[in-house]
Each structure stands twice: as C-alpha cells, then as structure tokens.
C-alpha cells in the first residue's frame, strides 16, 4: 500500500484537498448567492458538520495505523486535526460575527446560559492548545506530556457530539449516529 514516498505524499495532499472541498463549496455558494434562504444557517451547519466529521476522522487514524501497520498514516492525524480545528474556528466565527454581531456581552451570556453553546465553545477552547502544540518543535519540547495533553482530543470530540445532540429539536438520528461513531472509536482505543 502506497510503497513510494511520493505516492504517500500525493495521497496525503489529496486528503487535505478533499477536506477543503466543503469550504470551497461554501465560498462558491456565497459568491453565487446559492446558499439557500438562510445562508448564515447554511454556513453554520456546514462548518459545524465538517468540524465534527474531521475531528472523528482524526480519531480514526491511530486505530487504523495500528491495525494495518501503515506508519505513513501518522502525519495524516495532524492534518485532519488541524482541518477540524479550522472548520470549528470558522463555525465559531460565523456565530460570533453573524449571529451575535461581534457583541462580546452577548457571547458571554450565550456561553454561560445556553448549555449547547457552552459545550461547543468548550470543545473549541480544548482544541486550541492542541492546534498550537501540533508542531514537531512542541512535540519535542513537551515530550511525554505532549501525549497526555493531546488526549484532550477525546474530550473535545465528546463535547462536540453533545453540542450537536443538545441543539436538535426532535429528530436525534443524525447526532446519535455521530455519537455511535465516537463510542466505537473510543472502544477501539480502550480495548488495546
């Protein structure tokens, strides 16, 4: 599987390209005015959905690497994690700019009083140090503590799924599907 170095590099870049497609779709839709009757909601939903999907994909990498022995997958984890963080940041920025009009007092109120906002915001806060320390330099500097710190990704994923569950009105099928995926991924880690 992907024996040559250039092939692996290309596959990695292709993955990053694929993960950026939803963002390109949003940009194109915004430019053409084809994001539907409520474009702000569309942007919020798409960025949120992809943040969660990519975060869960990040958690797939290590179990998959162990199962298959494909060591070249290791750097994919960082790329996927950073992409998830990027979408989560856009998701939050949309909320802050277009829902709250950059009003920080509104933000404080929302984060404190709306549990679903609290959960989503906490997930983003937890992901921030992980994104900042994702470089080789920080990995070296933190040593063993780096691994402990980066376990926070599981907490963040749990919070992100709960954030979704909490804001759905009646049909829980979709958020529960994400919850099921997360449970399987956690089980895959704990079993070893």
């Amino acid at each position: 599987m992907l024996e040559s170095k250039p092939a692996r590099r290309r596959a990695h870049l292709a993955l990053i390209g694929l993960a950026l497609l939803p963002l390109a779709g949003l940009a194109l839709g915004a430019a053409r005015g084809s994001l539907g009757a409520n474009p702000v909601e569309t942007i919020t939903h798409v960025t949120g959905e992809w943040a969660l999907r990519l975060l869960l994909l990040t958690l797939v990498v290590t179990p998959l690497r162990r199962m298959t022995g494909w060591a070249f997958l290791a750097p994919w984890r960082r790329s996927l994690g950073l992409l998830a963080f990027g979408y989560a940041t856009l998701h939050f920025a949309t909320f802050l700019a277009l829902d709250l009009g950059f009003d920080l007092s509104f933000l404080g109120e929302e984060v404190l009083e709306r549990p679903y906002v609290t959960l989503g915001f906490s997930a983003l806060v937890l992901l921030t140090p992980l994104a900042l320390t994702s470089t080789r330099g920080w990995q070296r500097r933190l040593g063993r503590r780096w691994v402990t710190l980066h376990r926070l990704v599981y907490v963040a994923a749990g919070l992100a799924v709960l954030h979704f569950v909490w804001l759905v009105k009646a049909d829980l099928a979709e958020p529960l599907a994400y919850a099921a995926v997360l449970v399987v991924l956690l089980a895959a880690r704990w079993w070893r």
Partner: protein
Amino acid sequence: MRRRDFELPEREVTPEALFLRRRDFLRATAAVSLVAAGCLPGEEGEAKSRTPAGEPLAGVTPAPAGPFRATEEATSWEAATGYNNFYEFGTDKEDPAENAGSLRTKPWSVAIEGEVAKPGSVPLETLLAPHPLEERIYRLRCVEAWSMVIPWVGIPLAALLARFEPTSRAKYVAFETLHDPEQMPGQRRRILDWPYREGLRMDEAMHPLTILAVGMYGRVLPNQNGAPLRLMVPWKYGFKSIKSIVKIRLQEAQPATTWNQELPREYGFFANVNPDVDHPRWSQARERRIGEFSKRPTLFLNGYAEQVASLYRGMDLRRYY
C-alpha cells in the same frame, strides 16, 4: 383500502347535520367518493415532482391598512416556499419543497366536530364558499429565531366557526393535520406523535387577526406551506399555525398539542412570541429575518401587542409560555 379521518363522520353524523344545503350534501358525497377513488392502489406517480408555483387566486380583497397589513418588505416567494418546517415531509428546511408533491389536496374535506350545533364533514369548496378571500400581510416568527413577512390569502377563522354555531361549552378549538404516511413520507418515522395537533383558546380563535389561509402571494397555497388549508396566528410562534388541516374540534378542555406533548418544558400551549421569555435552549430576544444577515430584535407578541395583549391580561407569561 385506507380510510381517512374525515371520512368517518360522514357515516356517523346525522344526515340533517350535513344537509346544510342539498347541493352541499351532493357535493360532499361526490367528494368523499373521489377521495375513496384516490385511495385505490396504482394512483401514485404523477405528483412526485417539485410542487409548482400555485395557480393565481381570483377575487382577493386586500386587507385595509393597519395591523392586517404589515408594511415591511415581503419575503421572496422562493424563500417562503423553499425554506419550511413541515416535518410531515422531512426535517430539513428544503425537504417539504422537495417532498410535498405527494400530497393530494383535491378533493379535501374538513371535519367540524365537538361543541357545535351543526357538526359535519364538509368539502373544502363548501367550507370556503360563503367567505370572501382577503389578503393579510403578516410577520411570521418561528420558534427557531428566524422570521418572514408573508402575504397570506384566507378567511377569518371566527367567521367560519360561527357558521357551525359553537355551543356555550366551546372553550377551545383543536386542529388536526392529515395523517397519511402514503402522502406524507415524514410520518413513516415517529419523529413526532402523528397526526400533528394544535389548539387555540376560543378568544384567540375568534380574534380578527386569526385566519385560515388557502393561499399566499395571491396564489393557491403550495403543498409545502400547508395546502390546502392552514391556520395563521401571527402573534404566536409558527408551530401553532398548523398546516393541511382535516379536523377542527371545539371542546371544553384545553387540547393536547404536538410540540407541547413532545417537550413540555420547551413548547407551551400558548407559544406567544415573547423576547423576554427564552426557549430553555436558546434566546428569543432576537431573530433573523430571512433575507437579512444580522439579527433584529424580536417584538413582544410579534408586534401585535396592541391588538392581542388584552387576551393575556393578568396572566404570568413566564408560566404560561
């Protein structure tokens, strides 16, 4: 063959009740047999496509200036007919426009039951015939904190109810949407406790702002907007304005309503638009008018306080949300 709700009273009700006029009775009989014919297998197909824009409605009188005629710019037809909450056709906003083609709105009958002197199952044409159609431009505020401005075409609910002569025991009006998973694919999963039910207190139902709509933008109501007959109560959150009505029941007890049964802490029976009473999970202080980017403040009773605040005088609106 499936029997639908509104066919049953036809057999049960005393003939006199339906004999409002001889011609009405004949039309009613014809309508019921057509419904029966429509239920026969092998009749699917034609209606699967996206619902086309409705036919223009003739003889519509514009409402006089004032509360019946919001002066704000109306939401675009595309948004108002393409962004809908109508879980009978799916839970995504685009689902109803996509899936509502399977709803057959002709023939259609409405059963009027309970505390009325003249109950009966009445074909829609007969139900509407005596009432002039009026255009009402109303703000529509969804409980999800978005809003629209829509020119409805309809009739005052009060005038319609009066024809059936409510008794002194009629304290509430209960409404029911069609329940037919064949026509409403969203009902194949138990997302809500089908059929959808809503209700009003009698004084709310008789208020001049409350209408039954059969059209919007001068055209026949598209299926995804609740064809052929829907309620429109502009000072309440949108979920109160029940769509595709097949049953209107007057009764003494407060009726059970769908969202209230589902999540009683989140959706009350009254569901009056109120920026000061938040939904437990989100703020109701502001709303996004569809077509605008930033949010605007939500108005108490959706801007109809002058007309309807007196209905709730002395009531604790935090308790009766």
